[in-house]
Every structure is written in C-alpha cells, then in structure tokens.
C-alpha cells in the first residue's frame, strides 16, 4: 500500500490504459514533452512515444475534431483540455458531433473519446482558469459526465471512462490534484454509481468533485452543533444515481446540495429538483443549495468568498427547519 496524489493516480491510469490498449492515444496542448501543465501526462511521451501522447497545435476545436476522426477510425483518443474555460472553443464539436455521433448514425459510429477537463477554483488562478463548467456538459444528451473526488476514484473512474464506448467528459478537480491518499490501482464500479462517504442521521449533503472534502469537513464540524450528517459523493453526474441519492435523502429527511459552480441553472438545480420530485413526502424541509454565486469567477484574492465553505454549508443545514 503506497500513497499517491490524485494527479499521480490520473497519470497511472493513463499509463496503464496506454499499456493495455494500443488504440489509446493521448493528445492535447503541452501533453507530450512537458507532461501537461499539471503534469498529468508526465513521462507518457517518453514511454509510449510522441505519437501516443501528442503535442497538438493550439486549437481546442481542432484537437477535439481530430480526436473525433481518430475515434471514427477505431482509436480511443484521450483529449486534455488545458483548463475549463479553454474547452469552450471546442463546444460546437462537443455538442454537435461528439455527443450526437452514435445517435445520428443509429449506433453505427460510436465515439469512445475521453475529454479530460481540469475544472473548478481554489488554486488562486486568474480569470478563465477556475470555471466550473459541468452544467453545460450535463445538459448535453449523449455525454457521460464524471468527476472523481478521491485518489482511488481518480484512477478507477478514468480507467472506466477510457474503457467506455461512449464519450465521457472527465472533470478533474484541480484543487485536489495534490491531495494524497493510500493508493493501489484498482477498477472502479461502473460509471453511474454514487457513494455514501459518510453515513449520518440528521441531514444529507449531496455533492461531488472538489466540494466532497469540504462537505466531509462540514460534517465533522456539524457534530458540535449536534447534527450527524450524511455525505454523498455523486462521482457521476450523467448517468445520475437516483437510487443511492434518494435512499440517502429519505434516511435523513433533509438535504443540502453543495457545489462550486454558480447556482442558477447549475447541477444543483437538477439534483434538488429530482430529489424533491422523488422524495417530496419524506422531506421535512425543501432541499437547499449551497453554491458559487451567480457571478463571473472572482479574482484570486476574493475567491474564498465565492466558494462554498464549511460555515456556509452549516448555515444552510441550520435553515432546514428543525423546529417544525
């Protein structure tokens, strides 16, 4: 049992995939010689050659469009977008081709493409380097949307994403890249399974990616207030694990959704809406949301005010109408 960072686990997942399947190809900006700006592809070009881990020209639509063509020919491209906001130039390719190709060809032309997107804030990045763009992808039928929160899931879910015959947007919580944990590479459960990270009795926090550790922290802090909180890590936004989520919410009768992205029209809206649709009469209070504000991502020195923190989460829990 060794320890590894989440970044190292991702690197191992890519290495193992490249080793096991000659059709797997990594491509993107600076992924080769440099090993990526976050070093997620470190050493891959050296081990597998510049072609298996390709430094591309600087054009995201071109990168994703090229990956589409490679997938059409039977390869399994893994694309790296350097930062969340720099995936936007590829939006048309993603929505109009990647997400739809299987459907528009009646299943004849699946596109097994994995699109890795480092996302979210909390690392003091300047504008355009801290967006949480999951809602754009989760609303686009044909895409799977996956995001790990632990070192183990980083490996397992990335392997599963690369192995998937469907396109997967794999959202990597930047600020967790350097988080450490014990690590043995092992397969994850199939994409689409949420997991209860903490079992509680008073209320349930529903969250994913970068917000999972904060929710666990909040759950610890909540003890002092006499609250015993459950924490559910969604892991996959699409498909969505209604079963695990609803069971966890029914068990406590109260829930708060937590994520970094702006709240309005965010993933939390979908989660809150479907939980209330399905668990209405088990709820003592409406499902509340703790999210980023509806503002452009703030400059580094102000981001802490934007990001959901322990206090803001506990304030929301406190509003769950404990009296009535």
């Amino acid at each position, binding site marked *: 049992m060794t320890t590894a960072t989440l970044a190292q686990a991702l690197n191992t997942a890519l290495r193992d995939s490249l080793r096991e399947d000659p059709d797997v190809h990594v491509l993107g900006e600076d992924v080769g010689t440099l090993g990526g700006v976050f070093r997620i592809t470190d050493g891959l070009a050296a081990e597998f050659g510049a072609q298996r881990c390709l430094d591309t*020209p600087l054009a995201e639509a071109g990168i994703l469009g090229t990956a589409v063509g490679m997938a*059409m020919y039977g390869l399994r491209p893994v694309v790296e977008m350097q930062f969340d906001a720099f995936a936007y130039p590829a939006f048309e390719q993603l929505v109009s081709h990647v997400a739809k190709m299987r459907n528009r060809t009646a299943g004849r032309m*699946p596109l097994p493409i994995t699109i890795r997107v480092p996302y979210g804030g909390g690392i003091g990045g300047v504008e355009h380097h801290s967006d949480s763009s999951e809602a754009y992808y989760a609303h686009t039928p044909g895409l799977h949307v996956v995001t790990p929160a632990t070192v183990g899931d980083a490996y397992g879910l990335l392997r599963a994403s690369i192995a998937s015959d469907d396109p997967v947007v794999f959202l990597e919580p930047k600020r967790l890249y350097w988080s450490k944990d014990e690590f043995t590479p092992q397969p994850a459960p199939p994409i689409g399974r949420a997991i209860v990270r903490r079992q509680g009795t008073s209320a349930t926090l529903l969250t994913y990616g970068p917000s999972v550790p904060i929710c666990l922290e909040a759950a610890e802090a909540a003890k002092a207030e006499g609250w015993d909180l459950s924490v559910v890590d969604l892991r996959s936004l699409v498909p969505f694990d209604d079963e695990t989520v609803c069971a966890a919410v029914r068990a406590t009768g109260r829930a708060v959704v937590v994520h970094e992205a702006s709240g309005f029209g965010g993933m939390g809206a979908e989660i809150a809406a479907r939980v209330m649709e399905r668990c209405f009469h088990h709820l003592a209070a409406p499902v509340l949301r703790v999210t980023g504000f509806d503002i452009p991502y703030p400059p580094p020195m102000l981001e802490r005010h934007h990001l959901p923190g322990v206090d803001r989460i506990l304030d929301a829990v406190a509003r769950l109408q404990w009296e009535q």
Partner: protein
Amino acid sequence: MTLLDQPSGAPLGSVWPPDAHGPRRDPAPLLPDPEPFRILGTEAAAKLDPELLRDLYRRLVAGRRYNQQATTLTKQGRLAVYPASTGQEACQIAAATTLRPTDWLFPSYRDTLAVVSRGVRPLDALTLLRGNAHSGYDPYEHKVAPLSTPLATQAPHAVGLAHGAQLRGDDVVALTMVGDGGTSEGDFHEALNFAGVLNAPVVFLVQNNGYAISVPLAKQSAAPTLAHKAVGYGISGRLVDGNDAAAMHTVLREAVEHARSGRGPVLVEAVTYRLEAHTNADDATRYRTPDEVSAWQARDPLAMLEQHLRDHGLIDDAGVAEATEAAEALAAEMRAEFHADPELDPMSLFAHVYAEPTPQLREQAALLAAELAAEAEAE
C-alpha cells in the same frame, strides 16, 4: 516605395541562432496557378482516355437527373428540404471517383451526389433530408462520414481519420468537402493547420460556387483565391475549373495520390456555380440576376463535356441516349423508393443515445411507451 514592399536586410543564416522557429519553407511550390486549371478546350484534352471521359459523361447525366428528381421530391413533400448540387456535378462526381474504396469521404449537406457516386443508395444518402432519421447509411460500408451540417466541422474529422490511418500504417486518404462560405469558419483553419503539421493525407475540396446562401464570395473573403489559403498552412494549393469534369478528375486524382504518397495535404479550390437556389426553401432571385445565372448555364459542366465528346467524335446519339436511359432508371428507382412512406419507430429515439440507456432514459422511454399504448387504444 513603402517599407511594405521594400526588400529585406541580411539573409537569415548569417545572423540567426539555431532555429527554434521550425523550418522556413519556400512558398513558391505551394502557391496555386493564377488561373483555374482547365482541360476541356485546351490541348491537354486530347491526351485524356476517351473511356474515362465517356464514364464521366454518363455520371454527369445521371447526376443531373438525380438533382432534378430530388428537387421534384421536395415539391411532392417526399423530402423535407434539398440543397441541389445542380451545376456542381463535376465536383461531386470527381470527389467520389478519384478515391479508392479504402479511402474516406467527409461530405457536407450539399454533397449527397458525391455520396451516391461513392455507392450509397439515394434513399440512404437522402435520409437526413427526408426526415425519418439523421443518417441513412452505415458510414463504414462505403467509408462515407455522415453528412455534416455545421459548416466545416467535418474538416477536422477528416484530418483525425487520416492521421489515425497513418498511425496504423494504412495508405488511406480522407477527402473532405467544404463550401466557399465554410472556409471562413475557424474549424476550416484549424483542420488545415493540423493537417499541415501532422502531414496527414487529406484533400480539402472547396467547392467555390460563388455564394454562401445569399452572400457572394466578395463578402466572404478578400483572398486572391481561396486556394491561396494553402500557403498559410505549408500545404499545396490548387485552383481548378469546377465545371470542367476532365480537369476536376485530373486535379483531384493528382491531389489524392499526392496526399497518399506522403507528400502532404492538398487544398483544392474548384470554381463552380450553384445553378439552383440554396435549397428549395430559398429564393435566389433576391440576391442574384438571371443574367448571371444564364452566363453560368453557358458553362454547364454537362453541356461542356458533351460538346467536347461530340466535337471529337467520342460519343454518338446512341451513346447519349444510353446515358439518358441509365439516368432515367435511377430517377425511376428514386421515385419508387421515396413514394413509399418510411417506417417509423418512436421508441428508437432512445435506442442509440448511449451504448446502454441510462436509468433516466429508461424512465423516459417507459413514459413514451405508455403514451403510445394509450394512443393505440384510443384508435
């Protein structure tokens, strides 16, 4: 004399450090001819194989008839919409006939004739426009990508496929078709740049038919020719008369083999004209004159080739009649196929969104199934 046309200073080598800036190539070989390459009406015409010309002629006759029949089908409500390639048949046919079976074609919405010329049945090539499904053919059967509607988005796909084939050591060429308007899109630029850098075996065929719907080329680009864009990517540019079937065939064949031989991608601008409106839904009189259209009718690719064949005694009335019959047979087949209503299965909406439907899609499919059952009962 301004600095913009003043000669430069000392040569690079003399003062320049070890080059971090990549090879500096001589642009001269990349530049297209100043005028579109032509064969019909030039001495070169005599050198061509008569059987090839007769074959091209038969295909042109059939292609023209195909366009007419498809247009008729829109009037009969059998096609939702049809963007005719009438007047561009020489480009459409050459795009298909200069490829090997192992090569790939990446067509746009206007290129169904190229798709049919590649061997796809008209019914399947036109499925998107008929409206019963998004695509009617198996892309792998004839190595034809689905028709692409978002302009120029298919160009990077062609590059990626050609790159993939090259990685596997297969001598496959990808040919993608884009319109003059499509060259303005960022994806066109990114595809050409990737192709140049990867030296991918891709042929970019730009059918410059003078308009993007109502927008004439002069409002689309200030380039000397669209073929001149090639130099900016370090690839070869060719300018060709798109209404000269012999020239189209010759240039594209050359371009395809150039790419196959590893000498890099080629950008071909075919100067042609859309004789019909943008689609049956468009009113071309709003943006162009009858004079302009008739002037181009005088350069009809079909008429030009027939004239050549007759002038040189390469075809007789019987040959023409034969070609016409074959074309009529194709049209009859189309009528027969399209006048039957397509079978529709609403539940198929959920079939191919993912390899496995998500739990959410299962719920939604159940809802639709229940509605359909109720409808059925009601009837």
